[in-house]
């Protein structure tokens, strides 16, 4: 159990929650979170948004019962975190673009923070439906940043400019990026979303078929090479 430092409303339905403690974690990993004892039953997976000395934070969108209950928590309330889980993004090199759509921007802040000093170029693309959020926080780590509101962020993306693309967001967005790929020099890594129960690779409810056979999104993923995945 850990204590909440703050739980800030960013927009109508988005929140930034910061929790006290020295939590480990790599970029693109996630935690299974519950801000309640018994109900709802399952914990909710949230990607690491940022880790600082003595705190970890997540951003989340209120969708159903679980995120609604999260949104009601206040400073000093207790919360339970299990993790970090998942493989996380690879240590990209050279020219790198991070592309996030909607809540898919969540893991990209920590990723940017980890990568911006070691890569040659770090560009950040962020697509929002209604309202741009947290843009300044991301800009500090970006060489260039691109924003779209209501349209496809992928329209602004020329993947041939990059050695690595790390992306997270709705499946149609991911799919568009993967389909842009023509030659082999750009490595596209995608972070996938599946409903989860255990989060650690034991229950197989998050399994899906990849080109290398069955894979557990929580343990073998959530990050995959874009071409490994069968999109829907």
């Amino acid at each position, binding site marked *: 159990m850990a204590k909440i430092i703050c739980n800030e409303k960013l927009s109508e339905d988005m929140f930034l929650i910061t929790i006290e403690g020295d939590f480990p974690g790599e970029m693109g990993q996630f935690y299974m979170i519950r801000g309640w004892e018994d109900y709802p*039953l399952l914990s909710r997976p949230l990607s690491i948004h940022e880790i600082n000395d003595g705190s970890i934070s997540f951003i989340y969108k209120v969708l159903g019962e679980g995120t609604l209950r999260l949104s009601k928590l206040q400073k000093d309330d207790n919360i339970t975190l299990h993790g970090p889980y998942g493989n996380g993004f690879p240590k990209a090199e050279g020219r790198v673009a991070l592309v996030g759509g909607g809540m898919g921007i969540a893991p990209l802040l920590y990723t940017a923070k980890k990568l911006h000093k070691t890569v040659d170029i770090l560009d950040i693309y962020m697509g929002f439906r209604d309202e741009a959020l947290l843009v300044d926080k991301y800009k500090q780590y970006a060489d260039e940043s691109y924003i779209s509101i209501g349209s496809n962020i992928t329209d602004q993306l020329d993947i041939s400019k990059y050695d690595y693309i790390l992306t997270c967001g709705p499946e149609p967005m991911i799919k568009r990026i993967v389909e842009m790929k023509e030659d082999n020099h750009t490595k596209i890594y995608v972070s996938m979303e599946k409903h989860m129960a255990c989060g650690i690779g*034991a229950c197989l409810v998050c399994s899906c078929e990849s080109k290398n056979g069955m894979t557990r999104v929580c343990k073998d993923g959530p990050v995959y090479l874009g071409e490994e995945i069968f999109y829907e």
Partner: protein
Amino acid sequence: MSNTKVNFGSVEFKNPVITASGTFGFGREYNEIFDISSLGGISTKGLTLNKRKGNKGMRVWETPSGMMNSVGLENPGVEDFINKEVPFLQDLNTNIIANIGGSTLDEYIEAVERISKEKVDMIELNISCPNVKEGGMAFGIKTDTARNIVREIRKVTNLPLIIKLSPNAEDIVAIAKACEEEGADGISLVNTFKGLAIDIDKRRPVFDNVYAGLSGPAIKPMALRMVNEVYKQVSIPIMGMGGIMNWKDAIEFMMAGSTCIQVGTANFINPKVSLEIVKGIENFMDRENIKSLEEIIGII
């Protein structure tokens, strides 16, 4: 400190807490979180003769105090299990229960024959998986079908054999008795309850397979009742499960007649819960001055 040892037929368990099939993989993942040798036992993910990919589409859905799953017995097959998992499991200091599923009698028989050559401590015959069409559960609904499969399996293995029953069985007491008569060494129950969830916006079932298996605290009252009904009518020992979330639930199942208990869905909520249940049982025994768990098994 209290002695949590129990004898399940001829097999001794250092404590009655076993992790339930399909909720604990082959133990590797949880072993990174705590030393799983401190458990009474582990029931493996359901194994079938050949590798299976499991079901397509959504595999999990949350319900009030429960969850539905439609994994559909995704597993590497018995041979792979023997090569890749048994060596790891044998090095643990806990009982290993191989959970075996299948679609046809022959498939069950071959899988059991193969596994019986290995050093596992028990076989748990899963005749109750609701998530595989023409398989698993079909064997666990009617007493005669269940009787037949137990009879055939009993012929091909000398390992202690427990039969995992379905709460969807027509008459769970009659099936349990048939298992006993055919030489089973124990009964485990319950597997998941067959349920349905509908996506009203899409106007279709959430699961590709339409029905899926319900587990978790929602099912506890029914699971506990079934354990007690079976306990009153059979003499072979029982492993009870269904919604056990903490040591109090575990004690309830023991008082209803379970010699061992299995912990399933709760592992997802708190990966160390099985360990905490062992501790909770120890404390309860100390407080209530219970020397052996036999004193409370079936006491109600």
